[in-house]
């Protein structure tokens, strides 16, 4: 008798899990940082009589790994969030269906990294060094302008960076230094940085909120590896002509690295036409204009307008570092291992 009682909740859970599959549901697998506004999502749902479900599956790497592992029975119809550091890996796994969206015409060629259009660019952002304006003005110290400046003694102990083994932000900055100093020279640079009191933490949250002096944590370091789009978020109160962000970005040669994020239709989807419509939607002006304030990224669609706070406080670097996805994929593991040997141990 008791034994049967034990099985009831299990059976109930089991039944609950089987029921409730709606008529047409389009599932979008993505990383934890994905965000969009309700009116924009509803507009797509109402226009296409579809219910959108977003499967947040961990950080960008974890989400991609889950998509690759389930390629025989895909969990979703569309995958958003592969960036240029993971692009080759994603394409090699063969999980995406090519799609020549008509909206690609509105996107500059510099963002289109996959010639077969299995992965379509959606947004971009620049990993940059942010600085705390107040620190540099009170200490009468010029803001560092180049990567070389950072190993000067006056900037000793001022920079906090993310470990590239655990953080995509940290990895991206490592790539910027490799572009600038070359695959044979970057380790020497990092050794000088480490000798100059570089602080390494696990991820962006810790670096920005705990160590950086320009944000809420009021930590000890006035320089942090973060994003060019962070300054608008630190403006307090309503925006006026005299508003100023307490932080800025260092926009020197190769101090920033461009990160591009992609969307693709997953092979094996049973809603191919709808999935393609959703990809079109993500590239359309409406969605593209919604992104900046939702995810702190820039639209790739040249017709999309930027919000006021981005125009006023976020700067786009003139010369961001770039590297081909193939080169990144071929070397990423060994670079991370070499970096770890040189800096952490």
């Amino acid at each position, binding site marked *: 008798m008791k*034994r049967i009682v034990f099985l009831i*909740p299990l059976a109930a859970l089991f039944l609950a899990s089987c029921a409730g599959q709606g008529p047409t549901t389009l599932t979008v697998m993505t990383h934890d940082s994905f965000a969009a506004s309700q009116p924009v*999502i509803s507009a797509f749902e109402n226009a296409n009589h579809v219910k959108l479900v977003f499967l947040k599956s961990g950080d960008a790497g974890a989400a991609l790994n*889950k998509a690759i592992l389930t390629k025989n029975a895909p969990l979703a119809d569309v995958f958003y969030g592969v960036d240029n550091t993971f692009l080759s890996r994603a394409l090699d796994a063969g999980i995406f269906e090519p799609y020549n969206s008509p909206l690609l015409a509105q996107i500059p060629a510099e963002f289109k990294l996959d010639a077969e259009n299995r992965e379509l660019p959606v947004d971009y952002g620049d990993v940059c060094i942010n600085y705390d304006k107040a620190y540099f003005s009170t200490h009468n110290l010029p803001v560092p302008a180049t990567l070389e400046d950072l190993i000067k003694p006056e900037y000793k102990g001022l920079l906090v960076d993310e470990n590239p083994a655990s953080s995509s932000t940290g990895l991206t900055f490592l790539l910027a230094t490799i572009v600038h100093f070359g695959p044979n020279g970057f380790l020497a640079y990092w050794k000088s940085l480490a000798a100059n009191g570089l602080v390494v933490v696990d991820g962006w949250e810790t670096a920005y909120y705990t160590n950086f002096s320009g944000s809420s944590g009021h930590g000890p370091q006035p320089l942090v590896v973060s994003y060019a789009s962070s300054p608008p978020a630190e403006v307090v109160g309503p925006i006026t002509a005299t508003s100023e962000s307490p932080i800025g970005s260092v926009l020197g040669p190769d101090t920033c690295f461009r990160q591009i994020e992609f969307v693709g239709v997953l092979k094996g989807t049973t809603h191919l036409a709808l999935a393609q419509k959703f990809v079109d939607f993500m590239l359309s002006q409406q969605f593209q204009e919604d992104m900046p304030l939702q995810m702190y990224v820039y639209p790739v669609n040249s017709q999309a307008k930027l919000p006021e706070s981005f125009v006023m406080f976020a700067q786009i670097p003139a010369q961001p570092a770039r590297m081909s996805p193939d080169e990144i994929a071929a070397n990423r593991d060994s670079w991370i291992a070499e970096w770890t040997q040189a800096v952490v141990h």
Partner: protein
Amino acid sequence: MDPATLQGSRAVEWRRVLPWLAPGLFLALFFFYPLGSILWLGLHSALRGGIVAPVFLPTAQVFLFTVYQALLSTLLTLAIGLPSAFLFARYTFRGKSSLRLLTAIPFMLPTVVVAAGFNALLGGRGWINLGAMQLFHLAAPPITFVGTLGAILLAHVFYNTTIVIRLVGNALSHLDPRLDQAARTLGADSRRVFWRVTLPMLRVPILAASLLVFLFDFTSFGVILLLGGGRFSTLEVAIYLQATQLLNLPLAALLSFVQLCCTLVFSILYSRLVTRRPVSSAPRPADTKGRPARTWRERLFVGGIVVFLFLMFVLPLVSLPLRSITRLEADRAQHGPVQYGLTGAYYLDLFQNPTETIFYVPPFAAIGNSLLYATVTVVLSLLLGFPAASALARPTRLERVLDPFFLLPLGASAVTLGLGFIITFNRPPLRLVTSPVLVPLAHTLVALPFVIRILQPALASIPDRLRQAASSLGAPPFRVWLTVDWPIVRRATLSAAVFAFTISLGEFGASSLVVRPEYPTLPIAIARFLSQPGASNYGQAMAMATILMAVCGAGIVLIERLRLPGAGEF
């Protein structure tokens, strides 16, 4: 030896299997099946030459550090937890229940929040460093916290002391006091009573607590990643980095396999040590609440530990609610002392969704979801834990074989298991990956070993002759259970329920399993705020963390207050 095991007929054997059916089925389906699938997939491709880099040396390094830090952490946790367990079991003092509650709260706080708490206290611009700099006129902060082994050990002690307090304290408070009294009558002084009577009887709960603490430290993940500053790596961290950052599944599977084998060895050792019949005990008479400290030595003991626990637990915890109501807007022109001001804005902000994001988490919905998951976890783990613990209380060879397997979920890599769920429950009829029921199921997996460990000694301590006496006086089975078993196991059941509840509330499922954003929990809401820049987001994260602490505290108080009418004083 137990007379029941000596009979050993077929019928008896068959009846012994029955209690294992439900928990066994649960474990097989939701643990061994997904874990086996992912390990097979990984090891299979490893055997086909998937691993190219030399793996032996790095693996050995990681393994040694994992064991080293877990041993150190466990010893420190025992050094603090054991005196605290005695304090709570034997003495009464002002603020006892609040202090006890506070020691339990860290257990369910997400690592991000704990790290923030410690940083507010010990970080470069934390109170202690700022105070020391003012006091001794230092130019630089004297204490470096993040990136040291000390930070990792401190966080482990902070998290796990409650395990020792609960497990050992629970056993201590229902030891039969007549044994002490007998020893004293025979002329033993209090120190002799402690070493020769009390401590030997506590061997099993102390070992149980040590093993659980060790396993938690052994598989430590967030603490190492956040407070280690990238300089330290445990097996679990290495698995995570290989599986999700480097996408090297074969190596991740190999590391998971090593971790799992270690856990199995520890579990078997432990199981050998503890599945003996413990000393019989009776429900403790009225003095279970303890007594005030009388001699100066007792006062020193109580006072010292209370002060220590206060510094250790209350200060880091208080820094969070404090942070959620203070605005730290430095006057930007002069980068000097930070301007403090009180504000309720972060709490009000929680109720607003200025960017109209679809992932907006209304605070009450997050609380509701968290509580719902926690309740299902408590019910499920008690229903599955009771039969298993009852069987383990009267162990035969079957129990000795099965017991270690029920501890394994504690030592399995959450990342690996999460990937296992993804590949096994991704198609009908068990398309659970896209379903919210996976959350309480996963929580139950982690809570079950605790529930079993807590219930088993209590059930084993019930003298059979009490049951026999009740039956021979004509009591039907349920009445025997209600009047004999329940008063003895009631306290352990509540303790088990509290553990299951707190595990569920604090479990940060987002990193290991697919979570439906429509049903966000409090830890997920906190993580969402922390992943975006800006003072308002940070403040709201702290406000949500404070709400999580409050909900946890309220839940624990509520569960501990649940008593059957007429069951007497707790």
